[in-house]
Structure formats: structure tokens, C-alpha cells
């Protein structure tokens, strides 16, 4: 299956490099949202719970843009049929799409986190970074898995642009809560601490449960 996943992943990344339909839009959305927060809150800096909340909510909505586009080329250009008539394990598409979304999220955060530090974050980013990276990685994994599952479900409907976010947001809220609570201690101005272990564990368990659910369901979503 790994050769199929590699072929699919390569195709996905090539398509994104050619069209630039997802990652630039996601990144621009995140940066713009931070600018809006900067002026709407009328504050030069935020810290702690507020900082973590702003960061995670912004990343969530930016991720939804990528989720919505994840299967569009396959649905519109016959990519599903081309894949389904090939003698390959259908789970390969799940892994490839989840890895694609994960790659999009990493690039998004490479842009969004420094922008957040520049525009809004009070405490210096440096000391918080190792803990933040761990928290973001766990959050990204969950968003990638759930986003792939939801996108596959929504893309074959006529109201896919509406249905995708409607299905994804309730399922992704626990990740935002877990991510924000876990990263909040690292973003306080005085005495920053490591991410809260309890919330990291919650995130990890949530990823695992949805990973198994998505793996079990994905083949059925591709069926007629």
C-alpha cells in the first residue's frame, strides 16, 4: 500500500503546487484574522488562555478551507473513478489525503504562528515553541484525520461547501479545546510552563479514536 500512498501523495502535492488553491488561501486567512483580532480587541498583545484561544480558533477556521478543497479535484475531474478502477487498497487514499492535509497544516502554521507572535502574542515565542510544537502536532493529526473523513463524506453532495464545515466543526471543537488548554500555560507572560499533560493526553486519545473510526469508515464512503 505504501507505493500507492506515495503515488497519491505525490499527485496531491503536485496539484497544489500547480494550482495554489489551498495553502496560500489558508495562510492568508489566518494572518488576516490575526490582524482583525489585533484591531477588534484593541490590544497590542494577548497572553495565556486568550492567546491560546485566538491561535487555535484561527487555525481551525483556516484548516476548514483546506478540508473543503481536499477532494474537489477528484470529484470534478474523475479522479475518484480513476482511483476506484485500479486494483489498489482504498485505504491508501485515506492515508494520502490525511498526509496531504497534515502537510498543508504544517505549512499554514509555519506562516501563522510567527505572524501570531508578531501581531498579537505578548510573551516571547521562543520559550513556548517546543511545547507549542508538540501541541500543534497532536492537534494537526486530529484535524487531518477528521478533516479527511468529513471531506470525503461532503464532496459527493451538492451542498459540499456548506456540509463540510457543518460536519467538521462539531467534531473539531474538542481538538480546539484540548489544544487551547494544553498550550495556554506555555503562552503566559509570567512563569510560562510546559503544556498541560492531561490535555495532551486527551488530544492523543481523541486522535487515536477518530483515526480508527476514519480508517474503518473510509472505504464505505468511496463505495457507490
Amino acid at each position: 500500500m505504501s507505493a500507492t500512498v506515495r503515488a497519491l501523495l505525490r499527485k496531491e502535492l503536485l496539484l497544489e503546487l500547480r494550482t495554489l488553491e489551498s495553502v496560500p488561501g489558508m495562510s492568508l486567512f489566518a494572518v488576516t484574522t490575526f490582524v482583525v483580532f489585533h484591531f477588534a480587541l484593541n490590544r497590542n498583545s494577548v497572553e495565556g488562555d486568550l492567546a491560546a484561544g485566538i491561535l487555535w480558533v484561527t487555525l481551525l477556521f483556516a484548516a476548514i478551507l483546506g478540508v473543503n478543497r481536499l477532494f474537489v479535484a477528484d470529484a470534478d475531474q474523475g479522479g475518484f473513478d480513476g482511483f476506484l478502477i485500479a486494483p489498489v487498497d482504498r485505504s491508501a487514499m485515506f492515508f494520502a489525503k490525511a498526509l496531504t492535509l497534515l502537510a498543508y497544516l504544517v505549512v499554514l502554521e509555519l506562516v501563522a504562528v510567527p505572524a501570531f507572535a508578531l501581531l498579537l502574542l505578548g510573551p516571547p515565542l521562543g520559550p513556548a515553541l517546543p511545547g507549542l510544537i508538540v501541541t500543534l502536532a497532536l492537534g494537526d493529526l486530529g484535524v487531518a484525520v477528521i478533516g479527511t473523513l468529513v471531506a470525503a463524506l461532503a464532496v459527493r453532495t451538492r451542498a459540499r461547501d456548506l456540509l463540510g464545515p457543518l460536519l467538521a466543526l462539531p467534531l473539531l471543537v474538542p481538538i480546539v479545546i484540548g489544544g487551547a488548554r494544553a498550550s495556554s500555560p506555555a503562552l503566559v507572560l509570567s512563569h510560562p510552563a510546559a503544556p498541560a499533560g492531561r490535555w495532551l493526553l486527551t488530544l492523543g486519545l481523541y486522535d487515536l479514536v477518530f483515526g480508527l473510526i476514519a480508517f474503518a469508515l473510509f472505504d464505505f464512503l468511496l463505495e457507490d
Partner: protein
Amino acid sequence: MPALQVEGLSRHYGEREALSEVSLSLQEGQTLVVFGPNGAGKTTLLRVLATLLRPHAGEVRVFDRSLPEEAWAVRGRVGLLGHEPLLYRELSAWENLRYHARLHRVADERVSELLDAVAMSARAGEPLRTLSRGMVQRVAVARAVLHDPQLLLLDEPHSNLDPAAIELVAPLIGAPAARTRVICSHDPTGGLAEADVVLGLRAGKPTLLRAATDVAPAEIAELYR
């Protein structure tokens, strides 16, 4: 052993019946040509045989494998050339074919060989969206035969192709290819010339199933009235 054996196949979309009680049998190496007006169920029949749609009633066996239970054993032995080229517009012909070659575990040399065969080597690096429809159709032909399938499912395969291109792709998807073929066509003369067996469909129901030698072009024309 027949390549295709279909008994009482029915398929519906919601309330609408797209195929109703279709039965046929086709030996290996033979060509079945399906005629019928738009919406007669031709494409649905091809999609069922390609394992993309599940039959709702009846029995479908392809190379003695039952669908949909043994669809996994049929995929890879079937090549589909439909209305859509099943290619990504932003990728080049080479990138598209190499992607499909990976899915079918076919070597890159086969991709080059087929690009030569459909005279697309010179423009193999250009995104498909920059090519004419006829050129895209030639690449789609290459995609359909990339894995050397035993059964070809062809939905109006010559659409968008000029006479020279039709000649070009004949060794791949025409009679000289010597594959078992199911072809959907609206061309009574050309279709009959290719056919061993003729199936006529009207509103999903079979109205004609006979050896091509026993069918007159006027009977095909009658299907469209």
C-alpha cells in the same frame, strides 16, 4: 468461459430505473456494441461492468468473477474510457499517466511507449488544460490501456477525435487490439462494423440483443425514433 455474463441486471437512481432486466453473454475476444438514445442506460451498464456501480438486482459476472462481491479481482483487468478522461487538468499527460501507472504497478517505459503510440510525446509535459479535447482524448485512450486490460469498456471512444487520430488509436482500442470490448455508440454503420454482438437499449430496457450479422442498420435507427 464467457468474458461477460449478465442475467436480469437492474440498476436504479432513486425512483428512476436506469437499467431493467438486462441479460447478455459475451465470449472473450468478442465486441459488444450497445446502441440507444441518450439516457437509455448505456453508460450505467459500462459503470456496472467497471465495478463503479453496484447492480441492484440480477447477476453480473466478469471473467467468471461475481460483481460486486469479487470486484477486487476484476479491477485491473478492465480498462474504462468514458465521457470523462479521468485525468487531472493541471497535470501533464506524462504526470497523469505516470500516476495511473503507479496505481496499476506499470513501469514508466510503458508510459513512454503509449505516449508515442498516441503521438503525444512532444506535448507530454504540458498541462492537460492547455491541450485540445482531441489531444486529451488521445491521452485518455493511453490511460485506458496502460495496464493492458483484457476487457475494454468504451463510451463513444471516438468523440473529439479526428479521422487521423481514430486511425492512430485503432491498434490500442480498435479491432486490431484483439481485446474483449463493450462499446457504446450512436453510429449505426461504424458500430455494426465493429460488433460481434449488438445490444439495443431504450429507457433502460433491452429491446435488441442479437449477433451483429443478423442486425440491419435500419433496426438500429429505429431505436432512436
